[in-house]
Every structure is written in C-alpha cells, then in structure tokens.
C-alpha cells in the first residue's frame, strides 16, 4: 500500500514537536485572522508570509504553518459572518445569509457550533479527498507538455475571470494587468531586460509578495478609511454554548452533499472557495422541499455553505500542489509561498519531495481536529476578538505589512511599490475589477510565457502544436466555456440578497 506508507512518512514529519507546534499555532492564528472582520484568509496569509521567512523555518514547516493559518481562517471566517453579518472574505458571504438571522433569533451559539461542525466535516473529507486524488492527478500531470501547460494556465485565467467577476472585460483587464507586470524584468530566455524603464530596482521584476500584500492588505486599509463610522455592526450577544445535536443530525446529508459540491468546485483551477460555498447553498436551497425558511435562519443554509467552502479550500490544494495552478485567491498566495521557498509544485514534487507533500497532508488532518476543538468548545473566546475596533486593528495590519516587506529586502523602493499596489487595489475594488486575477497573472505570467515559447521551439513556430493533443484540446474547450458560459448563466445564478437590519 503506497498510500499507507506515504501517510506514515507524513505523520513522522507532522508529529515532530516543532511541526506539531507550528500546526497548532497556525490554527489559533488562522481562526483569529478569520474572525477579524475585514481580514480573511488571503490577506491574513499574505502579511504572514514575509514574517515566516524571518523565523528561519524550512520548507515543510513554513508550508505547514501557512496552510494551518489558511484552514483556520476558513473556519474562523464564519464567526464574524454569523455574529456581525460581516463576512471576513468572499467565501464566508453565503454564511451570513442564514447565520446572522439565526443569531438574531437568539441562537447564535447554535449557529456557531453547527457551522463549526459543518466546517470540520467539509475540511476533513476534503483533506482525505486531497490525499486520494492528488497522487493520481500528479501521475496524469506527467503527460503535460508545454502546450498543455499553456492551455491549463489559460483555463485558470478564464474560469477565474469568468466566475469571479460580473463583467468579462474587467476580468480580462485584471488578468492582462497581472501578466503585464510579470513581464517586467529580465527575460529568462534571452537575458535581456524588458519594461524596466531603466530602473535598476525593476531588473529583478516585481516581487509578487510586494504585490500581494499591497493589493490585499494595504488596499483593505484604504477601504476601511473610506467606510469609517459606517460599519453599522449590530452585534449579537452570545449566550451559553450548547451542542445542537438535533440540528447537526438533521443536516448530515446536507453537509455531505455540500462537501462533494465544494470539493469539485475547489478542484477547478481558478474557481475556488467562493464558488464552492455559493453552489453548495444554491443546490441546497433548490433541492429543499420547504424553501420558506431560507434566508431567515434555516440550519441547512448554515451547514451547506460552511461545509462547501471548507471542502473547496481542501479541493483547491489539489491543482495547486500537482499542477502549480491555484484554485483561489488564498491558494495563489500559498503558491507564492512555495515559489519563494524554491519549491516547484507539480508532479515532481510528489516523487522528489514526498516529505513536503505528505507532511503537509498529515498536518492538515491533525489541524482539522485542533480546529474542531478551537471552534466548538472555545468559540466564545474567539468571538471576543470581534470587539477589537478597526481603528486599532487596521493600523496594526499596516505596520505588520510594512515590516514584513521591509524585512525581505530592506529597501524603501519595495515599500513604495507596495503602497502603489495598495492604491491600485483600492481603485480596482471601486471599479469592481477583481484583484485575484492580477495576483494570479503576476504569479503565473512568467511560466505561461515560457511554456508558450517552449511549445513554439518544439514545433519550430507551428501554432497548431498548441492544439496537438487531446488533453490540450480539452483544456482549450474548457477554457472557452469557462469564460463564456457565465455570461449566459449569470441571470440564473444570482446571489440572494443579504439580510438587512431594520432601523
């Protein structure tokens, strides 16, 4: 049994005291980050990456720490959704629809426990799915040549743009912006510099960590400055926590169904957790016999999106680890981490560095149980974090971002660049141009160009080579569909309006 041997290897890595401590620390930190309104998995992980380097962690340890933060933030995101009606990030949005109404009926504790259990079911099953599916996909990935990789990157941009935005043109602009930024610096094939404008600082290109922290964290500060005083958070009081056994049993089928849907949505390169929680909620609502309670505090409306988004978080790790194509904003940030650690994700990762992959998987299995403990019996402690006012939190986030980026290079040029990306991120947000494709473009632009150029070298400039294999053709068709289909489906797939407080 390959799988058991691999798992044994994984647990031998994960159960070393340092790794275990890092996984637990990551879970605690992640739950806190997720619970803070305005901080979600993507910007939480983003500001922590530069700091994790200064710890001097090795690759496995850094990856375990950051993925635990990622999982933890996915769990924690529901706390502010349910108690404040403010989603920490996009995937947590669907949880506000029924979570907040239920909390207003005085059942906040039930909603938190139920969603915690749903998160656990979704995340645990998805981690097992990751364990079973990733090695298989890694074997398929050996068949990928440059033409297939080019089509795969295109597919990621098309699905991410198509699903993640309401306007195809804006999504395409975001992708092009990212790809364009990726072109800055030394061209790897010829050694010539491109688009640097003669600036020495730009010879190495734009560091993607600078871009990520700027677009996610600094932009968030500007958004908060704009919305100051207007966050009309009518908090809900949290009574004693009990386990709502009946609700948990009643939603067991819901959780399993949502897990399956979320996992598959997470697998799609570029689609990710938002789609997972959205589809899980919509399927649950349309398949329910009695729809009248949805949006007013239906327990199924809490279990489904939470199981869905946590399952998608696990699913999104599959294409990220096996193909190097992230399935969501946060996995894009994790990919940035891998690339900075000099680990190339892809099929070779599984054969050459099995201790990294399996150590990560084993740590995630452990992390899920830690998170269950943190998020069910101890949820009350974490709900206190919501009381940290934005006027203290946001300056803190800014300063952590600055010190993190400063510790990477020690130059003020990167800091200025980061502020620039923050302003850009704010403008993009205002114009509803999605920022995640920009990040993905910066991360994958170099790889995409290299695979296109390699394909052309192999075929001596013959364009038809790009459509030369069944896998490539399939990916091209999926890419076109992924970009165009949402145009027609959009009228059917409209998110229900969030619950509004009266007065």
């Amino acid at each position: 049994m390959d799988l058991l041997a691999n798992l044994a290897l994984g647990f031998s890595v994960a159960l070393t005291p340092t790794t275990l401590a890092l996984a637990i620390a990551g879970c605690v930190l992640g739950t806190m980050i997720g619970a803070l309104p305005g901080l979600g998995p993507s910007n939480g992980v983003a500001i922590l990456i530069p700091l994790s380097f200064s710890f001097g962690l090795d690759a496995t340890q850094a990856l375990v720490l950051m993925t635990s933060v990622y999982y933890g933030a996915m769990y924690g995101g529901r706390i502010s959704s349910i108690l404040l009606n403010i989603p920490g990030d996009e995937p947590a949005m669907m949880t506000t629809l029924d979570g907040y109404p239920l909390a207003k009926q005085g059942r906040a504790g039930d909603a938190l426990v139920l969603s915690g259990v749903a998160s656990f079911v979704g995340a645990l099953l998805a981690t097992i799915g990751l364990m079973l599916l990733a090695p298989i996909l890694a074997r398929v990935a050996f068949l990928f040549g440059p033409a297939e990789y080019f089509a795969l990157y295109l597919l990621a941009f098309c699905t991410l743009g198509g699903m993640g935005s309401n306007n195809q043109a804006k999504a395409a602009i975001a992708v092009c912006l990212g790809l364009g930024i990726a072109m800055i610096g030394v061209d790897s094939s010829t050694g010539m510099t491109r688009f640097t404008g003669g600036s020495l600082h730009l010879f190495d290109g734009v560091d993607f960590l600078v871009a990520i922290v700027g677009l996610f964290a600094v932009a968030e500060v500007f958004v908060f400055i704009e919305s100051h005083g207007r966050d009309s958070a009518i908090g809900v009081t949290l009574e004693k926590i009990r386990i709502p056994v009946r609700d948990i049993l009643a939603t067991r089928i819901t959780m399993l169904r949502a897990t399956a849907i979320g996992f598959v949505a997470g697998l799609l390169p570029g689609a990710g957790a938002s789609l997972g929680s959205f589809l899980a909620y919509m399927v649950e609502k349309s398949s329910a016999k009695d729809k009248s309670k949805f949006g007013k505090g239906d327990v199924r409306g809490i279990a489904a999106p939470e199981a869905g988004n946590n399952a998608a978080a696990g699913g999104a790790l599959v294409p990220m680890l096996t193909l190097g194509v992230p399935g969501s904003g946060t996995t894009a940030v994790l990919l940035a981490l891998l690339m900075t650690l000099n680990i190339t994700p892809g099929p070779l990762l599984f054969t050459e560095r099995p201790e990294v992959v399996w150590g990560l998987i084993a740590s995630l299995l452990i992390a899920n149980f830690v998170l269950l403990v943190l998020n069910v019996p101890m949820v009350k402690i974490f709900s206190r974090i919501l009381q940290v006012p934005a006027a203290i939190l946001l300056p803190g986030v800014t300063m952590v971002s600055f010190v993190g980026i400063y510790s990477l290079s020690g130059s003020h040029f990167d800091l200025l660049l980061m502020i620039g990306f923050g302003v850009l991120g704010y403008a993009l947000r205002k114009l509803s141009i999605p920022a995640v494709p920009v990040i993905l473009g910066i991360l994958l632009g170099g790889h995409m160009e290299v695979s296109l150029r390699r394909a052309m070298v192999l075929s001596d400039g013959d364009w038809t080579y790009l459509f030369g294999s069944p896998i490539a053709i399939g990916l091209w068709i999926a890419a076109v569909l992924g970009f165009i289909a949402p145009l027609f489906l959009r009228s059917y797939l409209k998110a229900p309006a969030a619950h509004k407080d009266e007065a």
Partner: protein
Amino acid sequence: MSDRITGLIVSVLALAFFASASQLETPFFADPLGPSAFPMLISAVAFVSGCVMVLRPDAEPNWPALSTFVRLLIAVLVLVLYAYGLKPLGFLLPTALAAGAISYQIRPAVLASSLTGICLSVFLFVIFKYGLGLSLFALPRWLMATPA
C-alpha cells in the same frame, strides 16, 4: 463614466505596452517567438477589453465624498513618508506616528489614536525584535552609541 475613463486609460496603456514590446531587440539566437510576442499578445487582449469597457460601461460606482478622498490622500502620504523614514529614523518614532495617523483617519479621536500609535509601536517592536528576531533599530542610528 468611470468605466469609460478606465477603459480609455487601459487601452492607451495597452498601446504603449505594445509599442514598447515591439521596440525590444530580438537577439539572433532567440527562439522562434522571441521576447516581444507574448507581451504583444497581452496588450492586444487588454486593448480589446479596454474598448469593451468604453463601449459597454457598468453602472457608476459609489465614489466617496471629496473629504474622504482628502483623508485617503493623507493616508497615502503618511505611508510614503513612513516608507522613507523607517530606515533613517529607527522603528519606534515613525511607526508610532504613522500608526497614530492611520488610526486617526479611521476614527477621528486625538487621544485614542495617539495611544493606539504609541502602544502599537512598542508592542510590535517587542514582537518583531525579540519574538521574531528581526534586526530592527529602535531609535535613529546616530543616537545609538554603538558604532556600526
């Protein structure tokens, strides 16, 4: 209107990017595609998308009032000054000032934001310096007695 202007800017930038890419010299040993083909492809897609944005704009976004823009501008300015000041002035002073200023932009209360700035500055310094072991200087280097 915002969308039309943005679309126009994107289109113009795409043209500039295209022009810049076409100027790149292709060395004789280059691959069939060369260094300029992929950037040109990107700029073509960006140009078309920019035109689509000009022709079919979405509804106008909710731009904040002028006073909010001023606050945002101040915040950006504070951050830029902070970026320049971090190295020569040491960690504590610029951080306290910048954090206090950002805090004030979010909640305009002088005493609370000054306290926030000072506490955050000291708290983060202790964590970064002694928790994470980053090499930060608390005070301007010319004040520190130890010769470098």
